[in-house]
């Protein structure tokens, strides 16, 4: 077991535990913190796949701006704990086991499709900032400019929707 194995399994475990915590916690702020943990561990996994720019962007934009927005809204609305109701018996005894079986099946198919010989090696890493910059401003220039307009629309929309009633 090499260092990459340890790093992968550790951060994959943290991500799955964070996702489980997101579902199991009752107060939204704890779910938000778990989601931040998931995003941070995913950023490390992107680094393990060689995507250094995307990892940095994930932390700066996703964990550092979008989740701050979530936390602000939870604070401002003073969201409380949710009421706990139990699942229906069908969901508990039929639904969850079937879901688990489905998950195992999907994992098996994925594992067989990309056999263990296809390892992630550092020599084949791509994702340097220069390459992403060239692609964004070259081949993908139109979508890039369109996302700028999209953000403008979202900005105006959010401000109009959330302003106080006059």
């Amino acid at each position: 077991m090499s260092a990459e194995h340890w790093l992968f399994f550790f951060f994959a475990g943290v991500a799955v535990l964070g996702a489980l915590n997101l579902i199991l916690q009752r107060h939204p702020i704890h779910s938000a913190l778990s989601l931040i943990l998931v995003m941070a561990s995913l950023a490390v996994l992107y680094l393990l796949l060689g995507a250094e720019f995307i990892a940095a962007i994930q932390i700066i934009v996703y964990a550092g701006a979008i989740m701050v927005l979530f936390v602000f809204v939870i604070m401002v609305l003073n969201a409380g704990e949710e009421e706990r109701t139990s699942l229906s018996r069908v969901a508990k005894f039929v639904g969850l086991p079937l879901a688990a079986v489905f998950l195992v099946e999907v994992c098996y198919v994925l594992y067989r499709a990309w056999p263990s010989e296809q390892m992630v090696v550092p020599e084949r890493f791509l994702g340097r900032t220069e390459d992403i910059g060239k692609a964004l401003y070259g081949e993908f220039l139109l979508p890039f400019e369109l996302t700028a307009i999209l953000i403008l629309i979202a900005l105006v929309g959010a401000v109009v929707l959330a302003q106080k009633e006059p």
Partner: protein
Amino acid sequence: MHVPLSYYLILSAILFGLGVLGFLLKRSIIAIFMSLELMLNAVNLSFVAFSYAWQQISGQIFVFFVIVVAAAEAAVGLAIIIMIFRNRASLNIERINLMKL
């Protein structure tokens, strides 16, 4: 020794599944929204893994766009949630079941 590619895809599938579970089972709108973001993150991991596998940068470019669109969607979605809270004083989705206020 390196990590096989399929491990990343399996992790992405597990996270996506947990996101769907949260989306269906939670009652607070904000928690449902966060499960949605979890699903988007799982998909991002898939994209980056495939970008490595097929040695194309477009996978990572698409992740960039997914993050940008998720930001825009989170902003507008949270504004809508604030408006819903102002009108209903509750964040429970079972109370938000009428089209009229």
